């Protein structure tokens, strides 16, 4: 099996030779990989170096790896799927619509942007009150506001889509 895995925009070509050998960008490593229980905790011995991490799929094909105090965002794709996607220019990169979801139940305090507004990465697009604190939800990339699904004072559930941003031409 061969995979193309992207971490922090860096691509790694990863080929599983057997359960003790792995090729990473053509370089061979000795490997011992163990999943500890069902909570996502894993133990990796890579050329005898020991790494303990937590792996969680927080969205289809999107993985989050907590390792030595840092969180890595990763996408894992079968090589063939990857080539096709690339050909069609549909990589799960910075294109397409992004849905800003409510990370938890709460009440909308303010929606500082309107449909059509251009927003820059990190710009606040929603103010949500939860746990008695005001939390600012920010745009995950430069884009245009395509939809605003909520209004101030509205109560929202966890993972409810609040706002959609994307490219001007899209949507």
């Amino acid at each position, binding site marked *: 099996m061969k995979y193309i895995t*992207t971490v922090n925009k860096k691509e790694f070509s990863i080929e599983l030779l057997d359960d003790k050998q792995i090729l990473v960008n053509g370089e061979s490593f000795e490997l011992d990989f163990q999943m500890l229980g069902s909570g996502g*905790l894993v133990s990796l011995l890579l050329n005898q170096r020991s790494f303990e991490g937590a792996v969680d799929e927080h969205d289809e094909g999107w993985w989050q790896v907590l390792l030595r105090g840092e969180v890595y965002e990763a996408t*894992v794709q079968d090589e063939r799927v990857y080539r096709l996607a690339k050909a069609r220019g549909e990589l799960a990169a910075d294109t397409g619509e992004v849905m800003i979801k409510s990370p938890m139940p709460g009440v909308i305090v303010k929606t500082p942007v309107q449909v059509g507004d251009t927003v820059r990465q990190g710009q606040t697009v929603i103010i949500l009150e939860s746990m008695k604190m005001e939390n600012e939800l920010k745009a995950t990339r430069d884009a245009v506001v395509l939809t605003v699904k909520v209004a101030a004072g509205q109560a929202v559930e966890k993972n409810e889509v609040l706002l959609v941003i994307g490219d001007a031409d899209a949507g």
Partner: protein
Amino acid sequence: MAENLLTQKFDKLLVANRGEIAVRIIRACHELGIRTVAVYSDADRNAPHVRYADEAYHIGPSPAAESYLRVDKLLEVAKKSGATAVHPGYGFLAERAHFAQACYDAGIVFVGPPPNAIDTMGNKQVARATAVAAGVPVVPGTEAGLSDDELLTAGEKIGFPLLVKAAAGGGGKGMRPVHKAEELAGAIAGARREALASFGDGTVYLEKLITHGRHIEIQVLADSFGNVIHLGERECSLQRRHQKLVEECPSPFADEDLRQRMGAVAVAAAKAVGYVSAGTVEFLVDQEKNFYFLEMNTRLQVEHPVTELVTGVDIVQEMLRIARGRKLRQTQADIKMEGWAIECRVNAEDPYQNYMPSTGKITTMRIPTGPGVRVDTGVFEGAVISPYYDSMISKLICYGNNRAEAILRMRRALSEYHILGVQTNIPFHESMMETHRFLSGYFDTQFVENEWSITEHAYDHEREAAIMATLVAYEQSLRSSQMVAPGARDTSNWKWLSRWERLKR
């Protein structure tokens, strides 16, 4: 004797709280042979405080307003269970004078200060006046209750930067820093809105903002015979939105002279309000080691453990002894500070997404152990973190013979601490423990918000992260596509098998 405060022996105590602090209080009672009564909302039936207590009573739905804040239900449980004392912990009803009064009226020992002390210190303006009268230095500012226009004018006089603060506020709620005149109006509006939501009272006031100020507080202990001592200081400058994140004892900024000066003032403040029990006087300290009274927290403090480790005094046990009508066992001279303790508050929040609170079920939890490590927590594997309560789920406290040892131990312990299923700010702490400014001790209350970013750092293990994600994805594809040949299992070295087996069991 303090007014409207009952102090007498009791053998059964009701814990009017939840989470880690309820567990902390139950443990202290257990160690003193006091029987405990827990209360719980719908969300907390399986919480540790319910399981560790001798008795447990359900008091209502998950929202605090319908359970943990219901004085009537709490007193009813006390009556029913025969509990003759109540410990409020922190938050909830801990600083509500009417609750202390209601306990007194019901003939129940309230483990805390007398109602009037809570009242006096609970109102920022009265507290300020009391402090001034007691000769305690305060920060220049306005009284409360001014109109927006009056506040705007007053703001100009005080000068910028300044702070907009809620009169009924606490823990940074309804608080806004303002750096330019034109920001003032918006800040006042925001503060009023948040204060109204949090305390049902939109009254705000202004206060000069001390730049590069440090938040240093003094722990005091007072018995019902008028004896008051202090247990030295705690450094609490590492905050975000006025929420403390890391505390230490002693403060790397304080010297013995500052400690004694602040301690004396704190004791004076406590005496000025006829204080009884454990309390904390918070100060803002500027670069020249001038200090200004901020507020007095008339309750047990979240960060009390760092003081316990350095002074050897079990603060919760002392509160219980004092409430039982005992004299303080220690004089000021008995209090010695030895070694160094640091506390990291573990919050269910995502440090990579603007510290957004995170909810969900804890799927895996591994607690750090070993020398010099203490964990105070109210959650467990399988616990569900709900949006109803505070996001602080655990406190990791490390002790060493000096600050360097404590920091190295904290790094070690953080690297062992796993909480999966919800996001936590453990990565924030791991990164903070590597930060030069923290290591050198040169930081102020603005440091976390204005001068520091967790995302600054080097991602040293992208390759290993990529491999981990890939192998888990591969394993998942195997399972989903049912490609698990029974024969393969025995030979395979990959432990998804055990997981597979577990799922089938």
